[in-house]
């Protein structure tokens, strides 16, 4: 993708990038509003909506009661008649209370109305584990959302992706979950300067975060950074790993996945979530279906341990996917150990 090459860049945080995306889209389109717990007067639990209340007023930046099912459904209803709500979940963990409205209402409305009623809504907020928040606050929620046709899901790993994908999500005609990494909000990165024009990343385009010939690490969201760390370690051992950042899980850039696998002939699927029926199981299924003859080894998956997230620091570290485990997995598919 050449979108970023000719532009002036600003080095900003993931949080600021999301904030810019929201402000720009609210500026551009009067039907866009932001709603959720603490988004207005408190500036957002993670400060993503900082300053938006002052700028857009309490008609468009709205604090809600703690009623996830209620305000998610309210957003869906508003979208049914043409508004473009952005519903912030303080974290996606709490969106489980709202899943009925996401899956049973938002995802199915267009289909079951025979194309009469579309639902252009964004559900966004942090997902996944931060540090020692234990079982109920540390879930990677992507696979719940991608399971349902009718929903789209993106998981940006960098500030530029966060900005470009959130803007595309707001403009999309369908429900899109924008899942932000809870530990990524302070991560800095280059983002095209707003002065330099509209920066939108279309849904459905994976991104090669690193090129390499020897093994493909396919991943998305916060674990992109773990993959890059693993790739650095492997480089010291003379292995060039390619890091494929899916960015968008539905639509899924199958072409990029297959091209990478055809180049390296070996793949490791890395994700933050649980293994059972996870995003990775779908990706591996597609690879074996469409690139079986290009594989020199079975694909290996690295996921969080198949248990609720423990609190104790040492156990938590063991439960999460780590760069070392990714290195081990790469060595396995390279038959190096």
């Amino acid at each position, binding site marked *: 993708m050449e979108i970023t090459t000719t532009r002036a860049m600003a080095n900003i945080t993931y949080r600021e990038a999301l904030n810019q995306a929201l402000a720009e889209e609210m500026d551009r389109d009067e039907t866009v509003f932001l709603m959720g717990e603490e988004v207005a007067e408190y500036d957002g639990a993670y400060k993503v909506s900082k300053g938006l209340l002052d700028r857009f007023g309490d008609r468009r930046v709205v604090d809600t009661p703690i*009623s996830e099912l*209620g*305000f998610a459904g309210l957003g869906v209803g508003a979208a049914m008649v043409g*508004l473009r709500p952005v519903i912030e979940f303080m974290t996606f963990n709490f969106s489980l209370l709202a899943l009925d409205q996401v899956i049973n209402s938002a995802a199915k409305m267009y289909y079951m*109305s025979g194309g009469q009623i579309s639902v252009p809504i964004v559900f966004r907020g942090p997902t996944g584990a931060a540090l020692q928040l234990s079982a109920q606050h540390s879930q990677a929620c992507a696979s719940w959302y991608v399971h349902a046709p009718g929903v789209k899901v993106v998981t940006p790993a960098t500030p530029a992706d966060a900005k470009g994908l959130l803007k595309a999500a707001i403009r999309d*005609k*369908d429900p899109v979950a924008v899942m932000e990494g809870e530990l990524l909000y302070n991560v800095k990165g280059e983002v095209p300067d707003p002065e330099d024009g509209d920066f939108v990343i*279309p849904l459905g385009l994976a991104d090669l975060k690193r090129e390499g010939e020897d093994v493909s690490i396919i991943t998305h969201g916060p674990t992109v950074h773990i993959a890059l760390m693993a790739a650095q370690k492997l480089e010291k051992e003379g292995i060039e790993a390619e890091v494929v950042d899916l960015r968008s899980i539905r639509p899924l850039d*199958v072409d990029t996945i297959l091209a990478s696998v055809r180049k390296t002939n070996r793949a490791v699927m890395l994700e933050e979530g649980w293994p059972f029926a996870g995003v990775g199981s779908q990706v591996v299924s597609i690879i074996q279906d469409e690139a079986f003859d290009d594989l020199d080894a079975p694909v290996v998956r690295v996921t969080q341990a198949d248990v609720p997230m423990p609190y104790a620091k040492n156990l938590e570290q063991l439960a999460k996917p780590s760069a070392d485990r990714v290195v081990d997995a790469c060595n396995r598919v390279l038959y190096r150990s």
Partner: protein
Amino acid sequence: MHSFLRDMLLYRRFEEAAEEAYAIGKIGGFCHLHIGQEAVALGMIGPLRQEDYVLTAYRDHTQALAKGVEAGPVMAELFGRAGGSALGKGGSMHIFGADVGFMGGHGIVGSQIPLATGIGWAIRYRGGDEVCVCFLGDAAVNQGAFWESLNMAAVWKLPVIYVVENNEYGMGTAFRRVSALPVVERAGGTGVPAHAVDGQDVLASWRLMERLVADVRSGAGPQYVDARTYRFKGHSMSDPVSGTYRSKEEVEGRKREDDPITRLRDRLLDAELLTKKELEAMDGEAREVVNEAVRFAGESPPPSPEELYSHAYAEINEHGRLFLDGRDR
């Protein structure tokens, strides 16, 4: 008043035709009839304008007709045909008519309540004076979505009227067995004004609604209605009229005393505002409309196989795959 009778006769004949079509396998899946509750649909929807909105649960045929969806497409939807109001993809529980403000029947008990609240939000956001009417069953007031919605509607003064079709039962569970308070009191704690009405009396329902709609249009905020009614049929086609949860005597008694159509008819006949002949003609017209709907549905083809994937997404993105089942399409 003649038109009230004509409309309610149409609803009744429509549901009877659906019952018949179900019995011979023309209609599949779940099918929930509204027989006995016609006056609620008419009384609560009649006073609305076309640009006002209505949402309801899965017992949705007569509300759709009352809001102006044509009988033919509703019947074709029940038949699962291409000419259906949702192209055969929704079925009995999901009748839609967006062009006339009928925003759907919804199958998860209580799920339409937040949706209606959101439509009310959108009306207020745009500064319009439309009203959104949300029908729900008595069982739905025990869902969290109900209380969450009424609270938010009250906080933001949204133009939504929540109408409980209080037919006393949720499937086979009597409301009184599972609710701490009567329906009319269940908005308590949200500050939304509550009104009770005899839902078998179409005039009383209409009059109450006329007043509430006017109030809500001029900014009074949300309202809550306990419309007392009764269903004369089983919960759905798979449920007998009476059975383990209510007696035959109870149902027969209510049918005798509380049929909204008989009540209006007798009132008009007694006051000599209607002759038997006019009544027959009216019923004949209703039957003709329904026969025509059945004919339309029967002649409409099933959806073509290409329709399997259409309308899953409103926007097919240029990049990536949206469908991951590996099938050709």
